[in-house]
C-alpha cells in the first residue's frame, strides 16, 4: 500500500518527443508499445463484438468468404464507452463498433459516429427489412446512424413449481391486474431468517422502468426525444408500484445480493433451482434455457399493461461507424453482411442444426430483420415437442409487434443514467418515487436541452 501509493504518485508523464530521446539515453528500455500498425485500405477493425457462438461465427465466416481482400481484426470484448470515446477523441477509432442501440443518439449528436445515409445507399442495405421499433432506435434526427442486430423482447417467465405452490395455473397469470400481481408475488416469495430462498417476482428495476411506465400508460420521453416526462404522475405510480413489489419481498439490497448469485445461463439456473417465482426478462434467457435445460418447467407469457394489452420494450445492439474511421467502405460492407436476411437465416440454420445434433431445444433467433425472422420461424424452427418452449416461441413472436423503444435523443446515455439513478434511489429507500422523479426530470431536461444545441 505504502510503496504503491508513492511510486504511482510520481513520474507520471512524458512527452513523446522526449521519450524517444530518453529511451536511447537511458540505455534502451524494451518497448511494450503495440501500436496499431498502418491501416491499409483493406483492413477492418471491429470493437465491442465477440464470437461467442455460431450465430456470430457463421455470419463472420460468410463475410470473410465474400470479402477475402479485407483483413479483418475482431477485437473481442464488450462495448466499453470510455475506450470508444477515447479512441474517437484520439482520432484512432476502430472501423466499426457494436454497441447498445439505446445509447446511439448521444454519440450521433456529439459527432462521434457517422451518419450512414451514404452507406445505406451505396451498399443497398434493405432498410425496409428491419422491424419498425429497431429502425426507430437507430435513426437520429431523421438519419440512419446504425444498423440493428438482435431484436430482444421482454416476456414474463414463470416457474411452474412456484405457481403450483401458490395454487395458480401458470397459464392464467395476467399482469394487468396489479393488485393480484402483487399478491401473487408475495405468495411465491420465500424468505427465512434474512435469507431469501425464492424471489417471488423480479420486476427488473431499475432497467425496466420504461416498461413499467408504459404498462401504466406513460412514456418517459416525448416521441421527438426532446421533452422528458419523468415527472408524469403515472411514471411515479409505476415506479412506486414496482419498487413496492421489491420491498414487500425482502427489499432491494437483499434481493439484489441474491440475484447476484444466480447462474442464469447454466444448468443450475434459478428456475431449475427454484430460486425464482417469475421474472421479466429478455427472450434470450429463454433461448439459453432451451439449450441448457430443455426439461425445465416454465411458462412464458406476455407482459400486459393495465388495459390487458401486451407491452414489450425492445432492445439490442447496432453496428455503427465511428467518426474518423479509416475504412468506412469496408465497415459498410461488414454492416450489410452482418445484418442482411440471408446472413441471419444461415446463422439460425446453423444453430438449429447444432441444437438438434445435441438433442437440445431451439427457440429460434430473434433478429432485427423482420424478413429473416419470417423465414426463420416458418422454415427453420420446428416444434420441439417441449410444449413450454414451443409455446414460448408463439408468445415471443406475438409480442414483437407490441414492441416500443425509448425514443432516441441527443443525450441518450445521460437520460438513461438519470432515470436509472432515480429508480435506484427509490429502491435504496433514499427517496420517494415522486421526489426522485421530479429531481430526475430536472436533470434529464437539462441534459436534453444541452444536447439539443
Amino acid at each position, binding site marked *: 500500500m505504502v510503496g504503491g501509493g508513492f511510486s504511482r504518485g510520481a513520474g*507520471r508523464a512524458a512527452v513523446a518527443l522526449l521519450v524517444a530521446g530518453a529511451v536511447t539515453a537511458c540505455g534502451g528500455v524494451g518497448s511494450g508499445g503495440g501500436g496499431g500498425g498502418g491501416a491499409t485500405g483493406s483492413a477492418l477493425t471491429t470493437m465491442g463484438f465477440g464470437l461467442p457462438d455460431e450465430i456470430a461465427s457463421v455470419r463472420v465466416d460468410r463475410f470473410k468468404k465474400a470479402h477475402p481482400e479485407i483483413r479483418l481484426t475482431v477485437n473481442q470484448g464488450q462495448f466499453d464507452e470510455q475506450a470508444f470515446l477515447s479512441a474517437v477523441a484520439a482520432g484512432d477509432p476502430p472501423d466499426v463498433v457494436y454497441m447498445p442501440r439505446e445509447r446511439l443518439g448521444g454519440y450521433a449528436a456529439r459527432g462521434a459516429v457517422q451518419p450512414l445515409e451514404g452507406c445505406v445507399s451505396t451498399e443497398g442495405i434493405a432498410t425496409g427489412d428491419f422491424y419498425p421499433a429497431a429502425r426507430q432506435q437507430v435513426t437520429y434526427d431523421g438519419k440512419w446512424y446504425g444498423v440493428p442486430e438482435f431484436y430482444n423482447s421482454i416476456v414474463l417467465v414463470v416457474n411452474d413449481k412456484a405457481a403450483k405452490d401458490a395454487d395458480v395455473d401458470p397459464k392464467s397469470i395476467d399482469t394487468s391486474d396489479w393488485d393480484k400481481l402483487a399478491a401473487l408475488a408475495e405468495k411465491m416469495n420465500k424468505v427465512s431468517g434474512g435469507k431469501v430462498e425464492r424471489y417471488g417476482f423480479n420486476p427488473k428495476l431499475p432497467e425496466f422502468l420504461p416498461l413499467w411506465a408504459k404498462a401504466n400508460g406513460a412514456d418517459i420521453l416525448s416521441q421527438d426525444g426532446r421533452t422528458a416526462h419523468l415527472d408524469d404522475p403515472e411514471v411515479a405510480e409505476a415506479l412506486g408500484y414496482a419498487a413496492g413489489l421489491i420491498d414487500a419481498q425482502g427489499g432491494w439490497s*437483499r434481493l439484489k445480493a441474491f440475484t447476484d448469485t444466480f447462474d442464469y445461463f447454466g444448468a443450475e439456473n434459478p428456475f431449475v433451482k427454484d430460486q425464482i417465482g417469475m421474472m421479466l426478462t429478455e427472450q434470450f434467457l429463454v433461448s439459453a434455457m432451451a439449450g441448457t435445460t430443455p426439461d425445465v418447467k416454465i411458462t412464458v407469457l406476455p407482459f400486459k399493461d393495465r388495459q390487458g394489452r401486451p407491452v414489450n420494450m425492445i432492445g439490442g445492439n447496432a453496428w455503427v461507424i465511428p467518426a474518423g474511421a479509416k475504412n468506412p467502405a469496408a465497415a459498410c460492407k461488414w454492416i450489410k453482411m452482418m445484418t442482411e436476411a440471408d446472413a441471419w437465416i444461415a446463422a439460425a440454420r446453423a444453430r438449429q442444426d447444432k441444437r438438434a445434433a445435441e438433442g437440445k431445444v431451439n427457440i429460434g433467433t430473434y433478429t432485427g430483420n423482420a424478413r429473416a425472422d419470417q423465414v426463420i420461424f416458418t422454415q427453420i424452427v420446428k416444434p420441439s415437442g417441449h410444449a413450454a418452449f414451443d409455446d414460448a416461441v408463439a408468445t415471443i413472436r406475438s409480442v414483437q409487434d407490441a414492441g416500443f423503444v425509448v425514443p432516441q435523443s441527443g443525450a441518450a446515455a445521460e437520460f438513461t443514467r438519470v432515470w436509472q439513478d432515480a429508480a435506484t434511489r427509490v429502491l435504496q429507500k433514499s427517496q420517494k418515487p415522486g421526489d426522485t422523479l421530479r429531481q430526475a426530470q430536472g436533470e434529464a431536461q437539462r441534459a436534453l436541452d444541452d444536447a439539443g444545441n
Partner: protein
Amino acid sequence: MTTAEDTRRGAGHRPGRDPAPAGRRAWRGETRWAYVFLLPWLIGLLVFQLGPMVASLVLSFTSYDLIGGARFEGLGNYRRMLEDPKVARAVGNTVLYTVLHVPLAAVLALGLALLLNRVTGRAAGAFRTIFYLPSMTPYVAVGVLFLFLLNGQAGVINSFLALFGVSGPQWTTDPDWILAGIVLMSLWNLGSTTVILFAALRNVPRELTEAALIDGAGPWQRFRSVTLPMISSAVFFVVIVNTIAALQMFDQVYTMFFGSQSAQQTSGDAALFYVVYLFQQAFQYLHMGYASALAWVLFLVIAVITLIQVRVGRRFVYYEAEEHPG
C-alpha cells in the same frame, strides 16, 4: 515538505561525506555535471508535473470535451462543484472512508506488529509473510474477491456470522453498508503498514524497556511511555501515507461498483469515491475541464491535510538519529 527539511538536515550532519574543498574551477565543473545527472528529473518535474499542474489549473476554467474545442467558463466548474450532489456524496464517502480506514489500519497494524514482535526466532518471518501476502494481491483481484466474500446472501463473511446466529448485512448492495464493506476489505490489506511498524518496533532498544521494567513500570505504561514514543515517527509516517492513499481510493471500488452499467446501478452513489467521480467525469463523459477543477480541489485538500498532519506530528514525534538503510 517538512520531511524534506529533516532529511536534508540529517544529510548535512553526516561527517566526512562532503567532498574536500576544491578549486573554484573544479567546483564549477562539478556543478555542471551535477545538473547533467539531475536533468532527467528536472525535465520530468517541469514537463510532467509542474507543467501539467498549471495546465490542469487552466483547464479547470474551461469546458473541454476533447472532441470539440475548449470554451472559457471562468469559475463555472467550481460553482458547479458546489451544486453537484454527486460531488457532495463523493466527498462524504471519501472522508468517511478515510476517517474509518486510517485509524483502524494504524491500530490493527500496530497490534499485528506487536504480535509479531513477540514471536521468537524464524517464525516471526513466516508470520510476517502471512500478514503481508494480502498486500501482494492486485487491487482488482482484491475487489473481485471481496465481491464474492461480501455477498450478503451467500458470501463467506455472512456465512461465518451466521454460525453465531448473526444475520449479516448486505455488504455489496445495501447503501447503508457498502462503505462498511469497503472498509472491511481495506483492513485485509495491512501488510505494508504492519511491516513498517514491526521494523520500527524491532529498533526499539531493549535496554530502554528493561530500564522501564526495573523502574517498576507496568506493561501499558511501558508501551505508552517507551515503545510508542520510540516508534512514533513510523506511526506518523503510515498515518500520512495511508491518508493520502485513502483520499485517492480508486482501484478496488471501481472494480466492484463501477465500469459497467449494471454494476453502477447496484450501488447508486453509495460507493462513489472522489477519484472515481473524477475519473468518470474525465474519461467516461470527457468533461476534461470539470475533472480538472475536481483534481485541483483534491490537490489543495491533500496539501492542507498533509501540512496539518506534519504540524501536529512535529509536536508528538520523537526523531531518533537517522541511520543509513542497507
